[in-house]
């Protein structure tokens, strides 16, 4: 079976999965679910095969495949080049874990779901995965847009599929509205290009964009950037993310956070470097700096809001905003540094390598964290970490894997988060050396903000892991939790192993980045820039001195030192080991003594109070005199500033406008016919009279 038939195989698997979920639901919901997820697993494995075939195959080869003709005015096709194959690879990796994890999770989380709902979930999952895969493989604008829309609709179905309270429906509605706003912007950008070129496929669009004037080019880019930024969850267009991602089932949240956001990044890269890029010379000034600025803001604000969340999944959703910001920092740098005079392209390749490596790293560890949160959720039915605690003794595997994910996302060595952040820092250093004046200072400030987000992420996950898994259980839900089913653990272990492998031996992953970077930037491939000294050493040969680290060596050193330290820790009297209750100044320790999540995050809330504008309300109930306090009630709230300042105002304006229009609505039919006539007349005047 060669690579060329791969996409058809993928389509067949996902299609079979979707159909079988619908058909088999009549007999047994559980069976339908299992078959659907199995088909999704097969499709994902096929996806891995296709992508590896393209990435490791003949360099510079693009896999093209025309699709059956649906429309008379356009030919649909697939075109899988290095960049598409890489994103397909990322999608498929997380899809494998989600497909293994899914059935057991849905059974444990909602055991009383009807077969209709299970059918819908299986169907939607397959459609979701298939559409995401084909967005990346699309070779023309129509395929891209169809699959983009299918992706949005399928994820909407999954988001509202578990409607305990009305909350999920509201989250889904907000998601739909914003996603369609973004799609509208994309539509305008694509159609503007298609109108110039007369055809829809990417080659024609590329050629048409070649002779655009700079103003139009920049306008189209910013339209496309806006459309993709909504889907990627960039501040301030991120408000749907913290509502929609937690509402979906956990394996779907893992897919949405880990993979769907990356498809938007794919779109930005495709537009900036491929479709809209000028034929020669660097990209316009505003593109790269805007993306860098937006990325830095998202990174800092994302992690700041994540710190104050107590809902496990909402916290993870805000961290996705942060990591997309980090990826965009790399992308922005690559856009700034590409094709600059006097440079040999190595710096742009380094920045793009950092961004793409962070893509796969984030998919791995975010997926792992969401799956871990899901297994906590399905066993305790509680999302609020203030009601959990002590789960490490009851769910050791979940706790260990969650800790692995937490160390990875905090960018701590020797795991994969550190590798991509190191590469981003090296790219920022290279960029800062190149630019003199305020531009260099902005780049360095970005680096400082990146360091800040790394520290804050570590603080946030110390809180999340510590309050959820350590200490004493705070409620009976947490006390009676048991370990998650083995298939869920298996799904998590797949991603955990990926995190460790990408952290300890990242050179092999860089090899996969050769095709995307060389193809997109037409410069040196990623291996030449980053792993010039062999696959075990990451080096940046930017200057004669250069810098090099070897994650493998660090991991080896850590293991050796840990072994020695273990001997030391046993001490001279290893048998003298007592277990006693925690010292709490002589009182009997209860769960009330443990530090809460609110308390843990409070110092940071006070330090960053200017950004949070926290609302705080303390009421005291007294009896008789003011000195006898019966009860103190404390309420604190952090609202997302983007929501209050921007969105509430916009919705208020829209509502007011709609109310004003509503007054005009007469309810009589001839009035409406009159409106239609007027609109027709205006359209004729505008478009008909222009071309005599």
């Amino acid at each position: 079976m060669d690579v060329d038939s791969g996409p058809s195989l993928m389509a067949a698997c996902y299609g079979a999965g979707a159909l079988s979920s619908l058909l088999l639901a009549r007999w047994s919901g559980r069976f339908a679910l299992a078959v659907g997820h199995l088909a999704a697993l097969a499709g994902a494995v096929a996806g891995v095969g296709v992508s590896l075939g393209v990435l490791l195959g003949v360099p510079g080869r693009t896999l093209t495949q025309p699709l059956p003709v649906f429309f008379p005015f356009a030919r649909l096709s697939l075109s899988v080049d290095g960049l598409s194959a890489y994103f397909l690879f990322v999608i498929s990796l997380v899809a494998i874990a989600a497909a293994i994890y899914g059935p057991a999770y849905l059974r444990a989380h909602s055991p009383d779901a009807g077969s209709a709902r299970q059918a819908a979930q299986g169907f939607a999952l397959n459609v979701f995965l298939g559409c995401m895969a084909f967005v990346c493989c699309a070779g023309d604008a129509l395929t891209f847009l169809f699959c983009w829309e299918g992706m949005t609709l399928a994820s909407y179905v999954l988001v509202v599929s578990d409607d305990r309270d009305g909350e999920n429906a509201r989250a889904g509605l907000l998601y739909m509205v914003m996603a369609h706003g973004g799609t509208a912007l994309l539509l305008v950008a694509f159609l503007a290009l298609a109108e110039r070129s007369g055809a829809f496929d990417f080659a024609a669009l590329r050629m048409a964009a070649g002779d655009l004037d700079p103003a139009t080019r920049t306008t189209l880019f910013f339209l496309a950037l806006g459309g993709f930024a909504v889907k990627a969850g960039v501040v301030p267009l991120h408000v749907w993310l913290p509502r929609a991602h937690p509402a979906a089932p956990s394996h779907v949240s893992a897919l949405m956070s880990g993979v769907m956001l990356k498809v938007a990044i794919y779109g930005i890269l495709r537009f900036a470097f491929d479709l809209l890029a000028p034929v020669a010379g660097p990209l316009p000034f505003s593109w790269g700096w805007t993306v860098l600025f937006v990325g830095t803001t998202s990174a800092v604000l994302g992690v700041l809001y994540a710190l104050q969340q107590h809902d496990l999944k909402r916290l993870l959703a805000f961290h996705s905003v942060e990591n997309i910001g980090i990826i965009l920092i790399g992308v922005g740098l690559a856009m700034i540094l590409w094709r600059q005079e006097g440079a040999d392209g190595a710096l742009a390749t380094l920045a793009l390598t950092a961004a793409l490596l962070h893509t796969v790293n984030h998919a791995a560890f975010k997926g792992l964290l969401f799956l871990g949160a899901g297994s906590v959720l399905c066993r305790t039915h509680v999302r609020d970490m203030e009601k959990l605690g002590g789960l490490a003794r009851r769910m050791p595997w979940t706790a260990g894997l969650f800790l692995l994910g937490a160390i990875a996302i905090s960018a701590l060595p020797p795991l994969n988060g550190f590798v991509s952040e190191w590469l981003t820092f090296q790219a920022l250093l290279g960029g800062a050396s190149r630019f003199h004046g305020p531009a260099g200072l902005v780049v360095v400030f970005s680096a400082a903000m990146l360091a800040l987000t790394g520290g804050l992420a570590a603080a946030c996950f110390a809180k999340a892991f510590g309050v959820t898994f350590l200490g004493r259980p705070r409620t009976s839900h947490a006390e009676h939790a048991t370990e998650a089913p083995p298939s869920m653990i298996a799904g998590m272990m797949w991603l955990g192993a990926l995190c460790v492998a990408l952290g300890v031996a990242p050179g092999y992953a860089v090899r996969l980045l050769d095709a995307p970077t060389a193809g997109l930037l037409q410069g040196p491939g990623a291996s030449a820039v980053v792993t010039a000294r062999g696959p075990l050493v990451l080096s940046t040969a930017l200057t004669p001195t250069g810098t090099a680290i070897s994650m493998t060596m660090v991991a080896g050193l850590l293991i050796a030192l840990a072994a020695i330290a273990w001997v030391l820790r046993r001490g001279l009297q290893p048998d003298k080991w007592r277990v006693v209750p925690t010292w709490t100044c002589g009182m009997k320790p209860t769960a009330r003594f443990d530090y809460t999540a609110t308390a843990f995050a409070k110092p940071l809330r006070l330090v960053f109070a200017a950004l949070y504008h926290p609302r705080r309300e303390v009421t005291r109930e007294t009896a008789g005199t003011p000195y006898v306090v019966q009860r103190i009630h404390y309420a604190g709230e952090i609202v997302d500033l983007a929501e209050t300042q921007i969105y509430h105002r916009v919705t208020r304006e829209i509502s007011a406008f709609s109310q004003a229009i509503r007054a005009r609505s007469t309810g009589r039919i001839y009035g409406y016919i009159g409106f239609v006539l007027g609109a027709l007349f205006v359209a004729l005047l505008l478009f008909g009279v222009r071309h005599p």
Partner: protein
Amino acid sequence: MIGERPLGLVLLEMILLVLLGPLVTGIIQKIKARLQCRQGAGVVQPYRDLTKLLRKGTVQADTASAFFRFIPVLVLAATVAAGALVPVIRAGPPAVPLGDALLLLGLLALARFLTAIGALDAGGAFGGMGASREMTIAPLVEPVLMMVVFSTAIAAGTTELGALAAHHGTSSIVAWRAADFLGLAAMLLLLPAETGRIPVDNPDTHLELTMLHEGMLLEHSGPGLGCMVLASHMRQIVTLGLVAALFFPAGPADAAGAADLLLGAGVFAAKILVLATYLALVESSYAKLRLFRVPQYLGVGFVCALTALALRIL
């Protein structure tokens, strides 16, 4: 760039740092004691404390999970691994790729994260409070450190500590550029924050009002506590070594003979002694800051580092 410091020398330097770490703490305690007009314990007292802890048994809280036993091991391993990255005796990049400043900061951050996890493990309020405060200060220190490292790295084009030290050269202060003064000022402001000393933290107390780092060690006992204490000694000498490598890199760059190695070790010891005296003087002259004044204090360091960078770039 492949340098000349062989792996054996790198490991030897690491072991040297482990052995000298408690001595530095002892010296600082002695200087503080003499400034307070008392005799103070001997300079080798930390070694005696460590051996005493190794002889004791362990008492563990009943709510601690399985992770708790591994925390001291991992924290010590991470801190000692960070020590392998500091150029001690010779400047110049090592032959193996183990010398990056960012990797050093990452390993120290790993140690801090694991300590905070261990503190939350046993339950109770002390650990939580210490962990919360430490994880508030840590993210504010990182950007300043990053700016200081960048301000020295931009000139050399690399973040490798040995290469930075060699680039600076063995010249005296007259050859310093103006930006180095401000970078050094920022670094000196950060030193008490990184090593957990006044005015950011009080290392001599376990009261909940004044502790950050010590609060996270409360639940450890016996050899586990010994590992954690050794890790904090190591962290201190690694940070001092980082300052020495970035700002005072005097030392032979291509030493091979035994005499040159001894000279390099002696120069390093002298630099560490000067920085340790600075720490002791600062501890004896100032009071501990309120926790919420520390961001302002670090903000001054940030502005110094930013100005240093501005001087270098603009």
